[in-house]
């Protein structure tokens, strides 16, 4: 039996898979595609660069981590809206990507992940022999 690549119809270019178990919240993310790369931007304020775990495996990018809940006891909080705990987002790219050259940047609470597209066409250099 053939395995369907997608279980449901999704935007073919960038599709999100179901969240992993045991996550507490899902940060919002934008996904952009340029001529040379995919850029995923995730809103996750109040973290450090080392708090993110970024994986690219077989065309699926996973961004996860944990944001610790604020320290005071619950009793002292009069309002709690900000999400805390483990988070994870996944993105699948339609085209081939260059997994060795993924880079990321964290600035002002936004994690930007740059996933370059792999070159699908490789020009083979041909040496011509000169015929006299």
């Amino acid at each position, binding site marked *: 039996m053939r395995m369907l690549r997608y279980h449901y119809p999704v*935007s073919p270019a960038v599709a999100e898979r179901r969240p992993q178990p045991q996550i507490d919240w899902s940060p919002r993310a934008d996904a952009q595609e340029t001529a040379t790369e995919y850029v995923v931007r995730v809103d996750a304020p109040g*973290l450090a660069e080392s708090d993110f775990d970024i994986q690219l495996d077989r065309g699926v990018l996973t961004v996860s981590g944990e944001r610790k809940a604020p320290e005071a006891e619950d009793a002292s909080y009069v309002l709690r809206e*900000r999400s805390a705990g483990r988070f994870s987002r996944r993105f699948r790219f339609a085209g081939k990507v260059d997994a060795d050259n993924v880079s990321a940047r964290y600035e002002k609470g936004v994690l930007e992940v740059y996933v370059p597209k792999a070159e699908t066409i490789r020009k083979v250099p041909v040496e011509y022999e000169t015929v006299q």
Partner: protein
Amino acid sequence: MSLTRYNPRGLAPWFDFDRLFEDFDRPLGVAPFRGGAEAGWAPAVDVFEDDKEIVLTADLPDMDQKDLDIHVEDNHLTIKGERKFENEEKKDQYHRIERRYGSFQRTFALPDTVDADNIGAKYDKGVLKVTLPKLDKPKNARTIQVK
């Protein structure tokens, strides 16, 4: 103009289900503070209070100083501003836009004990932290002698 979600053509109807679930992580606030959200979207806020101070923490990623306005007026603290979309011209390159942009405003009623002259605000890594120290006595406290 506030940004609307980009919906590429040819998307199956179930796609909107995802949006429903995404909105479930919206704030559910329960508080003696009267917090109001007007215009556009509203940042998630934690408010902590003890004897010495009130600390308000808001998730506000990607803000520039000039786009943030925090002020106290008439015992009300207002946090407002605008988050601009960084790539207005390239919007058609986006397969998905979930992050919220545009104007926001939240107003909180403050207790009498707040020392409005010494309010501090710090913005770091996308988190705005406003510290409101409390006075020992309410500003207009008056002891009344019983004769």
